[in-house]
């Protein structure tokens, strides 16, 4: 029965029914996920042509009246008020009025007593279940899309994953399609796409929605327009139901963290409120317009990740079958040699020999029986292969991570570390970490920023391997960092051909993978070690300033204790109960005749402290060198010159030949 449903259900329908898997749980999160999908698509598109990304994202609030007019629905005045959920019954009104009266009374009383009058707090209007709508627009300077492919790129959900293996940004490979399904479900309004490719004289415009049931695009308009300014890129406009008030901070966090991990991109984020400016003053709880610019800080882009083949230890039975079905190679030897990494010709021959008498190098790969495939799978599990290399990965890079952190957080100190490639279940991964202390808009304590394949992870932080490691396995006090007081920023970026996400929404990386956990720990510790010496120096400098004060604080206590003993002694000395000789006797005499008092001791000790302080300060100065002048950060922006260039890609760099 279940099987039957899956056959009938189109992939689009499947995702429409299970939209929570792709991060479309509720209107608020839908808005967030739509933004992130659009932004990530835009970044991919720009990086694909090695263009420094410039991305503008705008969220525009659409009121009910406007929305109704957009979908061609006449506004209806309420006739029967009591029918609605937000209708205020007589009883509720009485209650509210009484409360307001009481509040005014206390206000008046406070005012009469001369107390500071609190600004009248807004009475929240009774919660309405009415949906709010937003137009999300994302414009980039990327590759654009071929005119004829646009409808299928948006209007058709493909369930099969891509052939080959590559580090990708998206989690599901659905991108804007899921947002389109959501817009179809919540507003029914179509998506609008402008696109133009580099060198094309025209731009494409397309307005379409999706036929969820048949999983095909439903095209409203699809035409070519003139492209005078030779713009290339894509602009996607979509109207969805959302919730800005609850997900505002999440979206802003996302943008900020994205700016940290992609400092070579420029983001312009805008939110436009529905209520016109003059209404803002009247409105009690206005949602303000906002515009945030995340400037570009570097023009060094990480190379595009390369597509690679599967590692024999990373495949399962189904995957082997799919590879066999899709391969262009004829016989088994070629199949093993060309469809997997780290399998050379002689290695493949030895493997085939080990498989048993049923196998031969020349046998047709498509004729393998299920049992034979199981045998291959078993051997893949048991045999030893070299680890896959990390060349196919594209980490953010220590340099970029550092710049990103400095640019967005302005920390007092920062350290970064980039680990070497390691392997988990046949997939290579690289862990990079950054550690910052201080900075603006940073909470006290640990602030964990997680990145997987260069996108920020914001949800389900508690169970994540990075959070757990930072909270439990790092002994911060070893590095003179106060876990509760200091503003600590922990940044960990993990890239891999397959990130082992956990949870339905793929929102975190599990803590149970020891390879990743230990790599994360090492990376953070390396950053800590870098910072430690700086912190120690800073503590010394502070101690330097406070030494005299903290020593002087104890002088009265110490001298009074010693003086009390002397006084007791001098009185017993005077009574001749005890005899002292020489300078001791002299001292006691001075005490009894008030020549030496507690004040004398105090003065002498203070002098000594002064002297020691001076000596230590001198010593510190000779060690630390001349005090450095406070330096000012200077950023040199790149020249905005247009070059005609030919680009050569390699896993580690992009080579541009300027014509």
């Amino acid at each position, binding site marked *: 029965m279940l099987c039957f449903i899956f056959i009938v259900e189109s992939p689009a329908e499947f995702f429409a029914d299970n939209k929570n898997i792709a991060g479309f749980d509720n209107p608020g999160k839908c808005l967030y996920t739509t933004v992130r999908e659009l932004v990530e698509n835009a970044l991919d598109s720009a990086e694909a042509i090695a263009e420094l990304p410039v991305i503008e994202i705008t969220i525009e609030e659409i009121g009910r009246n406007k929305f109704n007019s957009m979908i061609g629905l006449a506004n209806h005045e309420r006739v029967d008020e009591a029918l609605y959920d937000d209708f205020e019954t007589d009883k509720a009104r009485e209650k509210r009025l009484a409360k307001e009266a009481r509040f005014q009374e206390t206000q008046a009383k406070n005012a009469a007593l001369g107390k500071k009058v609190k600004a009248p707090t807004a009475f929240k209007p009774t919660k309405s279940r009415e949906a709010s709508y937003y137009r999300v627009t994302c414009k980039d300077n990327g590759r654009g899309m071929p005119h004829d492919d646009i409808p299928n790129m948006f209007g058709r959900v493909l369930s099969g994953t891509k052939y080959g293996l590559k580090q990708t940004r998206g989690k599901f490979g659905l991108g804007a399609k899921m947002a389109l399904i959501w817009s179809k479900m919540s507003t029914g309004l179509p998506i609008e796409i402008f696109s133009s490719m580099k060198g094309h004289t025209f731009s494409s415009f397309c307005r379409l929605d999706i036929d969820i049931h048949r999983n095909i695009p439903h095209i409203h308009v699809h035409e070519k327009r003139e492209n005078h300014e030779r713009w290339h890129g894509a602009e996607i406009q979509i109207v969805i139901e959302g919730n800005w008030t609850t997900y505002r901070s999440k979206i802003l966090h996302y943008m900020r963290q994205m700016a940290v991990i992609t400092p070579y991109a420029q983001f312009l984020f805008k939110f436009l409120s529905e209520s016109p400016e003059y209404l803002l003053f009247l409105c009690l709880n206005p949602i303000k317009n906002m515009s945030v610019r995340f400037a570009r800080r570097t023009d060094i882009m990480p190379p595009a990740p390369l597509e690679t083949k599967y590692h024999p230890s990373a495949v399962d039975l189904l995957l082997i079958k799919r590879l066999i079905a899709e391969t262009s190679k004829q016989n088994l030897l070629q199949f093993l040699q060309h469809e997997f990494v780290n399998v050379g010709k002689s290695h493949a021959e030895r493997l085939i020999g080990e498989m048993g008498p049923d196998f031969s190098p020349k046998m047709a790969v498509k004729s393998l029986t299920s049992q034979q495939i199981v045998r291959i799978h078993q051997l893949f599990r048991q045999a030893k292969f070299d680890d896959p290399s990390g060349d196919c990965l594209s980490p953010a890079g220590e340099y970029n991570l550092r710049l990103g952190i400095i640019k967005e957080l302005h920390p007092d100190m920062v350290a970064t570390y980039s680990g070497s490639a390691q392997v988990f279940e046949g997939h290579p991964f690289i862990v990079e970490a950054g550690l910052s202390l201080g900075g603006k808009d940073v909470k006290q304590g640990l602030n964990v920023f997680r990145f997987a394949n260069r996108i920020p992870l914001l949800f389900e932080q508690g169970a994540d391997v990075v959070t757990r490691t930072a909270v439990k396995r790092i002994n911060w006090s070893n590095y003179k960092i106060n876990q509760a007081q200091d503003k600590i920023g922990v940044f960990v970026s993990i890239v891999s051909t397959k990130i082992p996400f956990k949870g339905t929404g793929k929102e975190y990386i599990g803590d149970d993978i020891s390879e990743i956990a230990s790599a994360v720990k090492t990376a953070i510790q390396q950053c800590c070690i870098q910072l430690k010496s700086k912190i120690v120096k800073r503590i010394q400098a502070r101690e330097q300033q406070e030494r005299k004060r903290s020593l002087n604080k104890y002088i009265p206590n110490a001298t009074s204790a010693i003086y009390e003993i*002397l006084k007791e002694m001098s009185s017993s000395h005077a009574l001749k109960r005890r005899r002292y000789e020489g300078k001791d006797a002299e001292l006691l005499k001075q005490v009894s005749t008030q020549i030496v008092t507690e004040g004398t001791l105090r003065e002498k000790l203070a002098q000594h402290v002064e002297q020691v302080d001076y000596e230590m300060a001198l010593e510190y100065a000779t060690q630390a060198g001349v005090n450095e002048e406070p330096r000012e950060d200077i950023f040199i922006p790149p020249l905005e010159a247009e070059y005609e260039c030919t680009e050569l890609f390699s896993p580690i760099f992009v080579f541009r030949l300027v014509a």
Partner: protein
Amino acid sequence: MADKKKRRRAASSSDSESDPLHFKSKLKPDSSILQTLTALKSASASSSSSRPASLSSLNLPTAFREVSDLPLSSVQSTIESLALSLAHSILAGHGFSFSVPSRASANQLYVPELDRIVLKDKSSSRPFASVASVRKTTITARILQLIHQLSLKNIHVTKRDLFYTDVKLFQDQSQSDSILDDVSCILGCTRSSLNVVASEKGVVVGRLIFSDNGDMIDCTKMGMGGKAIPPNIDRVADMQSDALFILLVEKDAAYMRLAEDRFYNRFPCIIVTAKGQPDVATRLFLRKMKNELKLPVLALVDSDPYGLKILSVYGCGSKNMSYDSANLTTPDIKWLGVRPSDLDKYKIPEQCRLPMTETDIKTGKDLLEEDFVKKNPGWVEELNLMVKSKQKAEIQALSSFGFQYLTEVYLPLKLQQKDWL
């Protein structure tokens, strides 16, 4: 009624079942057990008659620091000469500093010949004009002054009293307590000679008569709770006893059972407990009893690493007070029970045994490295068994055979079999 009878019968039958190996039947009459105990006593009296070697007589290559009981007047004069030298130093413009013997574990050594931990002679300087030590130096000066007052007035105070004289400076009792130990190291006297005592913790009951500040105390007539061990050992004198051994108990609960059952009347003994980790007063008292009465000491502790640790503190001293180990330790304590091997020997049911935690096992393994455990092969074997089985049990686990099993079966049988290590 019939119902009740049946239940009682069921209870009595289960009583006999709860003694699975019929250990009780193995017990010989008390008179024969007493004979073995008498033999133990005379053996211990003859062995302890040879005076244990002192540290100086051993001629060890390193120097050691040991303190001794000093009369109040000499404490006073030591403090006074120290104060004078401090004042001279301040007036000469050199500030002042204390030379404090280090009590860190690197400065401690277990001497097998003496069977106790002693303090080596490393010491560190504690100058006033250093941010790291200014606080401790000031507290040290203040404590010295307070002790000086005590010595002038010849009174005793508790550590808590001392702390409350200057809460603002001391901040926390643990700080004034640890400086107090430093001060006794500096002055070279025991903590009790500073006239600072801890509050009463240990109790004693059984065949012991002694005078406390002149009052004669008969510990058989102190009721169930027994007599609190005086915090100030100088008050204790004139010990007399007809006991055959001293029974050292770790826990208050087991002590209560023994006291209530008047165990010391069946087998003449003195029962002592410090309710957990022993304080200085209890350790001093035990040592005094052992030295004056020449009695063997048998210990009844939990079968876990901490039980053994407590045993070791009585036996060879704690690291914290190693400077005074000569006065605080009682050598030659026998481990009577509950030992890890007893768990199986006495068929202690599974539900009364507890699995050892990670830290328990680590403590156990650390103990195996300690010299005072190594010198006794029997102890090593027992501890190995504990670490291997990863099971621990408290003395109370014996109560699963009935509350009085401890006094009526377990201990008599152990004594009869001379089952101590």
